């Protein structure tokens, strides 16, 4: 393709005239002058001055110019069957082309202040200043290829003239250095190309909105009855759609569904619909789409029918007693029947079909009304409620026509988000970047399981818009922050402070526990991988099996991790597996309101501690396989719960005696760990498929005397934390610590007896001093062996 502009062509010249006239001051001046000349000229003529005619004469030519500009130049027609840019290019750009073969720099100058380029600047963060520099030095850009690509974008996006957006992205794509710029902007060329479609769609949407028809005219409803009760107790969706328009993206899945719904509603007989879909799929929006189609009046059977939404809470508020409610429903349905153009919509239909708080069982009233086919109903509900309805009320389910509303796929979700962006921006006075939309999609996909697309992504976007801050710009970082605040998870890149903390995580953990370097390192590495973004996001952050005798720090490490990294000791979901010894306990495990499922749903960013896993029933252990493998599990309500932001730590005392024997024989853990794990399998304590699912298995060794001394020091630190409120502290000399260790040491129980020793000898003595008034705020009580011996 060899592109050359013939600048003498009428279209080019007319574009330049349009550009000259495209200044508000010139247009206003011409219009004012035309009016002034015509009024003044004829006025003078009427009062006897014949030269008034001469003054009025040019006003007609001025008026012609204004009309020509408005009706022709602003919409400079294209030659649709041509392939030459000069025949297709939008007039604003065409008017600024000065040479037959414009350079990249010239095209950029023509584009840079165009609205569509501004769109890319704002939405994608396209740095215009940098582009100025790039195009001032760019020389080797193949402009023929640029035009060829721009024409291809035009066809793909369905735009009539060759738009500034198409030319800009084609030019940018062929500009040296554009890839680096895109890397910095964190977008791909495909995403920028999608932006061309987006901006074209916005243009079409605004045109459709401004040119929407006021459906029906003045006599539209004269043939239908009055609806005073419905107007009072129900919401007229059709009226709302008619007044404010509707952004309903014309994606195939949506339009097919609308067609099916209207077809069902049009047919005689079973013309009621159960709209079934997960929360967030857009059931209510679909009904708005139906209302919009009916109000357009294109379907003859349902022309100008109106959809009224009944709200359970409003109805309950209107009818204080049971009998009144039934009477009200009968009157509402009677009125709808009598009016002959009403479709009743029950959103969250279960509120009308089940007894409960805020809901009422009206099936006995509704069923005969629906069966008589007096009024058309649309009922929206989730698959669970539909399933329950089919089981518990087959008669009602039988008269409803099941229509599934599926969640949107990735592409369609983006299209819906693009549309809703306009509404969110208008509502919250913010600007959403494309990268924010993409982040919302990915976060919704990864972290939100209780809702479906597109609703869950839109919810995140809307929350981010609320939290946008003074700049009114919603960036991916704001979306991440919103998600972190609402879900209690970490999705943003680690800050410098956090990075330093992660690099020294082992030291911090060792402030709360002694030894066990292998396990501490494994856990710290897992967290570093997670926060550096190099972990597998389809699994938990880390899965660990801690083995070893009791009282050696297995549980303590989980607690320390929750405290140091997850933000507090309460960031731990702990399951004592000795409560799951029956096969039937699997049900307890997956119970939607149980410790595991509700705990992780409430705080997904936490430590999941499965204490003493060897005591669980094999079926319970098997239930964890999927969790360890994929980081997700379905609860009893069928909802998927994600464990992908948790660290799973299972502890076990299995084979503790063997560990002790090895250590007593003078072996180090590294020397016998492999053999020990093999023995766990051969002794049938664990199945290999269970062990293989852990990222790391660490054997904790029994603590030596000097390590127990350090444990005592940590425990005294804890006691002092408690005493800090009373401004007193306690200290032990080395001999006292050693005395406690010697008294409390028990190779089978590890550090556990130390807790009892500290309680009995330290805390009790401190309590006596406090109650006896022997210690004043600000002082330190130093305990010695003599003090302990008095108590012993």
């Amino acid at each position, binding site marked *: 393709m060899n592109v050359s502009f013939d600048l003498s062509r*009428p279209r080019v*010249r*007319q574009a330049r*005239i349009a550009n000259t006239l495209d200044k508000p001051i010139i247009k206003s001046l011409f219009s004012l002058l035309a009016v002034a000349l015509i009024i003044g000229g004829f006025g003078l003529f009427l009062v006897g001055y*014949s*030269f008034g*005619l*001469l003054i*009025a*004469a*040019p006003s*007609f*030519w001025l*008026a*012609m*110019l204004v*009309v*020509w500009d408005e*009706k*022709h130049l602003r919409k400079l027609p294209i030659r649709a069957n041509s392939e030459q840019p000069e025949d297709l290019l939008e007039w604003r750009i065409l008017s600024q082309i000065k040479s037959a073969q414009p350079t990249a720099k010239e095209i950029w100058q023509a584009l840079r202040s165009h609205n569509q380029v501004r769109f890319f600047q704002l939405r994608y963060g396209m740095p215009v200043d940098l582009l100025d520099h790039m195009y001032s030095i760019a020389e080797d850009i193949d402009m023929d290829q640029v035009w060829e690509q721009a024409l291809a974008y035009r066809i793909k996006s369905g735009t009539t003239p060759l738009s500034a957006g198409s030319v800009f992205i084609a030019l940018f794509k062929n500009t040296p250095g554009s890839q680096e710029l895109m890397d910095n902007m964190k977008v791909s060329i495909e995403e920028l190309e999608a932006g061309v479609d987006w901006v074209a769609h916005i243009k079409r949407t605004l045109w459709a909105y401004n040119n929407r*028809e*006021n459906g*029906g*005219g*003045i*006599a*539209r*409803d*004269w*043939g*239908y*009855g*009055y609806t005073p009760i419905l107007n009072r107790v129900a919401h007229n969706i059709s009226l709302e759609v008619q007044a404010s328009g509707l952004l309903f993206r014309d994606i195939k899945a949506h339009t097919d569904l609308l067609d099916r719904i209207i077809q069902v509603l049009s047919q005689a007989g079973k013309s009621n619909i159960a709209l079934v879909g997960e929360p967030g799929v857009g059931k209510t929006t679909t009904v708005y789409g139906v209302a919009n189609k009916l109000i357009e009046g294109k379907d003859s059977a349902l022309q*100008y029918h109106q959809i009224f939404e009944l709200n359970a809470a409003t109805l309950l508020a209107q009818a204080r007693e049971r009998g009144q409610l039934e009477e009200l429903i009968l009157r509402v349905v009677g009125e709808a029947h*009598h*009016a*002959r153009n009403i479709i009743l919509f029950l959103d969250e239909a279960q509120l009308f079909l089940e007894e409960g708080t805020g809901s009422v069982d009206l099936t006995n009233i509704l069923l005969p009304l629906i069966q008589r086919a007096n009024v058309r109903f649309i009922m929206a509900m989730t698959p669970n409620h539909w399933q329950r309805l089919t089981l518990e009320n087959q008669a009602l389910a039988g008269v409803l026509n099941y229509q599934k509303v599926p969640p949107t796929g990735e592409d369609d979700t983006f299209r819906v988000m693009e549309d809703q962006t306009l509404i969110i921006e208008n509502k919250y006075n913010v600007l959403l970047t494309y990268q924010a939309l993409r982040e919302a999609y990915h976060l919704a996909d990864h972290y939100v399981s209780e809702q479906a697309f597109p609703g869950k992504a839109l919810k995140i976007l809307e929350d981010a818009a609320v939290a946008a801050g003074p700049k009114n710009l919603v960036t991916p970082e704001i979306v991440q922050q919103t998600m972190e605040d609402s879900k209690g998870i970490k999705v943003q890149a680690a800050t410098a402070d956090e990075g330093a903390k992660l690099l020294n995580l082992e030291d911090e953990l060792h402030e709360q526990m002694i030894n066990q370097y292998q396990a501490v390192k494994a856990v710290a590495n897992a967290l570093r991988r997670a926060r550096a973004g190099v972990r597998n996001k389809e699994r938990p952050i880390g899965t660990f099996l801690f083995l070893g005798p009791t009282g050696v720090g297995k549980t303590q490490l989980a607690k320390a991790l929750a405290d140091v990294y997850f933000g507090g000791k309460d960031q731990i979901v702990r399951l004592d597996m000795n409560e799951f010894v029956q096969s039937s306990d699997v049900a307890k495990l997956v119970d939607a309101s149980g410790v595991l499922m509700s705990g992780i749903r409430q705080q997904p960013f936490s430590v999941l501690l499965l204490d003493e896993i060897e005591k669980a029933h094999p079926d319970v252990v098997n239930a964890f396989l999927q969790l360890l493998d994929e980081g997700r599990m379905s609860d009893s309500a069928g909802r998927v719960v994600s464990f992908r932001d948790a660290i799973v730590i299972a502890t076990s005392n299995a084979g503790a005696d063997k560990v002790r024997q090895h250590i007593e024989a003078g072996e180090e853990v590294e020397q016998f760990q492999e053999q020990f794990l093999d023995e766990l399998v051969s002794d049938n304590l664990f199945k290999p498929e269970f062990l293989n699912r852990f990222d790391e298995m660490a054997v904790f060794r029994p603590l030596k005397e000097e390590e127990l001394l350090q444990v005592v020091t940590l425990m005294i630190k804890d006691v002092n934390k408690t005493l800090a409120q009373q401004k007193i502290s306690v200290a032990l000399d080395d001999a006292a610590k050693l005395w406690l260790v010697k008294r409390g040491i028990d190779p089978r129980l590890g550090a556990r007896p130390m807790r009892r020793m500290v309680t009995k000898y330290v805390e009790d003595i401190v309590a006596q001093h406090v109650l006896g008034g022997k210690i004043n705020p600000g002082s330190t009580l130093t305990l010695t062996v003599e003090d302990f011996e008095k108590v012993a």
Partner: protein
Amino acid sequence: MFAVYLLGWWYGAGWKEQFKLTGVRVARVGKAFSGGTLLRTLFSPWKQLVSATERDAALGDKLRAVVDNIVSRFVGFMVRIITLLAACVTIVAVLIVNTIIIILWPLVPLLPIVLTGVWLAL
């Protein structure tokens, strides 16, 4: 060149558009007055204000219902026929105005010359 483009459009696409606009405006008036709906429902009851009786109702009740329905349909017919007449009047007005525009349209570029000629003659 500028004048050529302007006059070319004025006597070409611009004038043609005035014919098209006449049709658009007439259609718009028809829609605003719900022309199609009015014709289709000309004899329908007004706002569905009808009386219904049971199959075994007394003859007097049945007669009263028939009279009620006839009255409702008559009211509906009257309101609709008046509206249709108003629509017709408006459409005629639109047609007259647009015909004047179409006739005057080609004369507009000549008006300054005509006015100058009149001034000279005076």
